[in-house]
């Protein structure tokens, strides 16, 4: 039984414009699932829907999000928030704004353990030190007492990763965790996340626009266009022969320095019109359904 089960998830903006169109996908325990698509494709909306942090203007109109068997959308808000707090975690995109500037780093890791999971302060602090060591942060003690502005971007991202894994969540959503970083730092962070995911056996939902990152980190991936899943397959199969024409065009448009002539071919107009027709068909079906 897969750990996370999303069925027919549909969401719209307050003006009725659909954001997610009948999204269904399942993530097995300890699986790394990529969510790929261009901006506006709705990939991070799915992550936000699971974690209950959708912007106010977006409303879920249909569908289920089953975590470990329980449909989160059916739970009352307080109960749903507590359940997410206990079993899910987020690795955010921009390390510079993801730590509260006027609080020390330590409490920002231990607060969830103490307040939500009911650990004792000493256990929580010990846990925080272990995790900081695991993400190769020197002198965890000093770092826990320091303020975010005293640390580099790369260091802060490591702290956020440690904080996410500290609560032993069953599911982690990583929302473009390395987009804001230099490519050299990105490599270390991606390797770190992959390593910890394997060690802790956490299901990881990896949201990114970069197909290169997906090929290195994920086992399965879903390709999204305009809030609709156009392809859902395993990584090896996808990169050898992507099934959907839009996926193929996306892969061909990605810059690759080992093959300059073929890469960076713009997505053909025909492919765009075809996938838009598919979306329109889905809307009509949903309209009648």
């Amino acid at each position, binding site marked *: 039984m897969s750990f996370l089960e999303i069925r027919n998830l549909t969401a719209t903006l307050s003006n009725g414009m659909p954001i997610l169109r009948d999204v269904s996908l399942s993530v097995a325990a300890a699986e790394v699932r990529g969510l790929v698509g261009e901006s506006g494709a709705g990939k991070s909306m799915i992550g936000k829907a699971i974690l209950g942090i959708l912007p106010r203007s977006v409303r879920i109109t249909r569908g289920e999000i089953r975590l470990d068997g329980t449909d989160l959308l059916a739970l009352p808000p307080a109960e749903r928030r507590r359940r997410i707090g206990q079993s899910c975690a987020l690795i955010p995109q921009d390390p510079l704004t993801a730590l509260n500037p006027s609080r020390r780093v330590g409490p920002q890791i231990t607060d969830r353990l103490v307040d939500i999971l009911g650990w004792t302060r000493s256990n929580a602090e010990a846990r925080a030190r272990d995790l900081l060591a695991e993400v190769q942060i020197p002198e965890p003690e000093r770092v826990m007492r320091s303020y975010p502005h005293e640390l580099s971007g790369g260091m802060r991202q490591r702290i956020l990763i440690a904080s996410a894994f500290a609560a032993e969540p069953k599911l982690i959503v990583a929302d473009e965790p390395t987009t804001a970083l230099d490519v*050299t730092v990105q490599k270390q962070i991606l390797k770190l996340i992959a390593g910890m995911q394997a060690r802790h056996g956490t299901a990881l939902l990896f949201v990114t626009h970069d197909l290169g990152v997906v*090929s290195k980190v994920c086992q399965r991936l879903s390709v999204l266009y305009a809030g609709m899943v156009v392809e859902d397959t395993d990584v090896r199969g996808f990169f050898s022969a992507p099934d959907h024409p839009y996926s193929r065009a996306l892969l061909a*448009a*990605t810059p690759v320095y080992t093959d300059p002539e073929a890469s960076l071919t*713009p*997505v053909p107009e025909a492919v765009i019109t075809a996938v838009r027709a598919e979306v329109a068909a889905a809307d009509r079906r949903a309209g009648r359904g």
Partner: protein
Amino acid sequence: MADLYTIENLRLSLADMTRRPLLGTAPQLEILKGLNFSIPKGSVMGIVGGSGSGKSTLGRAMVRLLEPSSGQIRFDGQDIAHLSDRELRPLRRRFQMIFQDPLSSLNPRHTVGTLIAEPLRLHGFDDVQGRVGRALDHVGLPRSFLTRYPHELSGGQRQRVGIARAIAIEPDFILADEIVSGLDVSSQAQVLRLLEDLVRELGLTLAFISHDLSVIRRLCSRVLVLYRGEIVENRETAALFAAPEAPYTRELLSAIPLPDPDQPWG
């Protein structure tokens, strides 16, 4: 073939705003630490480096948005490093720039038509409307865009308006500062293909600043690798990708995740 740009011992320091005390003056931070290189006419020079490498500052110094602390910037033989605004004005037409954030580089209050026509009027071009129309055609935008406002366009479309504005004035040199980083893969490919055609068609000389070596591989004939304000490698593109010499270049190349699960990613 003569060089359009020759840079000698270029140094530039700026006030470090992050460590500015409550009221005193901020300490000076040296960003460019003595750069020497030249850009042949008609070539496309790639400038790559991580954040804090000084690539953007170098670009802004080359088009004299910033005045360097010392050193020479010879444009077509003439040193423009320390010219005053007035002396620069006649030269301005010959070196133009396209910016990374299309939203902040197009004045929200002006229509696309005005944005492209303004520099033409400033430099006394004739047949301004005709030139604006042709510039739009060149970048593949319909004439109906003339009366549209920047906030009504997509990222890719706005970037094309930026390109149209730069080429309309028929410059000798264009600086493109991370112009595709903010775009989606599909519009990125379109904009880069457009730029390639324009360089060939108009015989432009281009400096292309980017943090993405894969983009540079396709577009540029030479590559300059910057690391903390110093040039660590300045090579012809194919040679650099075949056998990178500087350790930092090797590290940059090996860090790029190619869309291929079997690629060894050390």
